[in-house]
């Protein structure tokens, strides 16, 4: 990577795998369970968090020397809230149906532990450019898991991807449905998302033994 130094590149690549916010730090589970029944919603949620965390990290980093540490949580909350409101309004204006599906979970980005966690752990102690990369890296790690979970849940639960039928028509019995296949209703329920995340954690830890803690 010519664009980024080795140290900076690690900020992006680390959270994608060995320090993933969902599977390793187990943060942001709530929204990962709630909105991943559809791939589209997962993708949009990932982008929304990327926007909030990327910009939020820069803003906090810029203000890091002037925020009194006693009220820093409140200041962080205000920054997140402002950014989330922008996301919410944009979604309502340009993708109303989608904002219906995501419902309160856009607003709940404010309480997403990943965001406050990165503000506290990284942006308060690092320069804006590195904070920006860290924000993008962590939200990418979050989005990757959301998209993997969303892919399996939508494919096996509804037989579609991004709302497009890929396995045939369940009512007309075409495609694989002609063979007697049926959609798995359990996939559309949040417990299955938890199980898929669990399976990802299982695979990840059996590939990289260093991640197993006692």
């Amino acid at each position, binding site marked *: 990577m010519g664009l980024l130094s080795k140290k900076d590149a690690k900020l992006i690549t680390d959270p994608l795998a060995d320090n993933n916010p969902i599977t390793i730090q187990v943060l942001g589970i709530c929204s990962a369970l709630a909105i991943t029944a559809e791939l589209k919603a997962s993708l949009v949620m990932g982008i929304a968090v990327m926007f909030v965390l990327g910009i939020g990290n820069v803003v906090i980093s810029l203000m890091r020397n002037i925020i009194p540490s006693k009220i820093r949580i409140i200041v962080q909350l205000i920054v997140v809230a402002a950014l989330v409101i922008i996301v919410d309004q944009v979604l309502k204006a340009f993708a109303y149906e989608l904002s219906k599906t995501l419902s309160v979970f856009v607003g709940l980005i404010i309480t997403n532990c990943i965001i406050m966690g990165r503000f506290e752990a990284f942006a308060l102690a690092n320069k804006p450019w590195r904070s920006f990369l860290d924000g993008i890296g962590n939200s990418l790690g979050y989005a990757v898991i959301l998209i993997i979970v969303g892919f399996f849940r939508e494919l096996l639960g509804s037989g579609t991807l991004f709302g497009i039928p890929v396995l045939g028509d369940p009512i007309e019995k075409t495609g694989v449905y002609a063979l*007697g*296949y*049926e959609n*798995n*209703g*359990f*996939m559309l*329920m949040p417990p299955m998302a938890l*199980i898929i995340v*669990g399976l990802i954690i*299982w695979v990840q830890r059996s590939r990289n033994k260093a991640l197993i803690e006692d």
Partner: protein
Amino acid sequence: MGLKSNLHNLKEKYKGTKMAPAFNAIHTFLYLPNETTHGGTHIKAADDLKRTMNIVIMALVPCLIFGIFNAGYQHYAAIDAASGVIREASLFSNFITWDNFVVGAWTVLPLVIVSYGVGLIVEFIFAVIKGHEVEEGYLVTGMLVPLIVPVDIPLWMLSVAVIFGVVIGKEVFGGTGMNILNPALTIRAFLFFAYPTWMSGDKVWVHEAVERAGTADAISGETLLGAYAQNSSLAGIDYMDMFFGFIPGSVGETSKLLIIIGALFLIFTKVGSWRIIISTLIGALTMGLIFNGVVSAEWIGESSKFYGLMNVPFWQHLIIGSILFGAVYMATDPVTASQTNKGKWIYGFLIGFISIMIRVFNPAYPEGVFLAILLMNVFAPTIDHYVIQGNVKRRMKRLKVKTA
């Protein structure tokens, strides 16, 4: 050179390789192994895990055989009923017949084969990966699974569910003896949530009722609970039918008589806990009485959608649905139940109590035994914890009084 020595030689040949556990499992399942322990004192006990499992399977076999005949009987009874003839069930004239057996065996045996085949493959794979001996845990689960599903469940669904149940319900926790949830019920719960159209409703409980739906040959496939939940009842069925099991339902859970015989066998051999069985039934009766009280106090009227099930006489809850089967074969699973004697009473009572509560209030499906048992599986260690802590506290108190 019999099969036994052949297996022994194979075991010697593959010793130390990855496949060794597979041969070992077959060998010890069929025969007493050739090796004996050398030196030192060893505790000899006949009631090892494999023996325990075999006893449960023996207790289940009557239910399976009855289930095979009943699958056929319900099929022909429903065809008769569709043409207006209400059948009187009678054991020898129209129940134990060749026709019933053929239809039943044709639908039930594939369930048994798929359940064991898929489950044991998963067990073997995990044993080879872990380099462990194959665990016996699936022997009972594999027999329970075909008994607690509707007869016409598609076999591929059963396979998916068995893989899920064995991997997520058992292997992720470390295999037999470490699981939190009963694997057989995990499999049923998976089927119930994943493919609700094949696990509930008024079509799935009788062979061919689904295929015939909407045609001129349509037959009913409703269970008694389903009928009660609709505030109606099934024609031509009296209490003796319910007790002997000539009613539609999951494959093996209909005959209360055979389940009671199985229960006595399990209690006599000390494999099943009588405390859990008794307390589950007490819990179910208590909840049934409460609902009867609600009806007789006229807190809810006949227009209520819960009226049908609440109005069922409390003792009748034991002979409809699968509460008895659950109490005897599922709740008593020694791995997932409470371990302390006092804990067993609490655990069983709550299973019965919650079962009937879910049965009445569940809007989608008028049965709650499997959900109640899974719920209490989760709480069993907590119950044990408090029973033990209570015991410790009482003894500490006694100690203080003595020393003071």
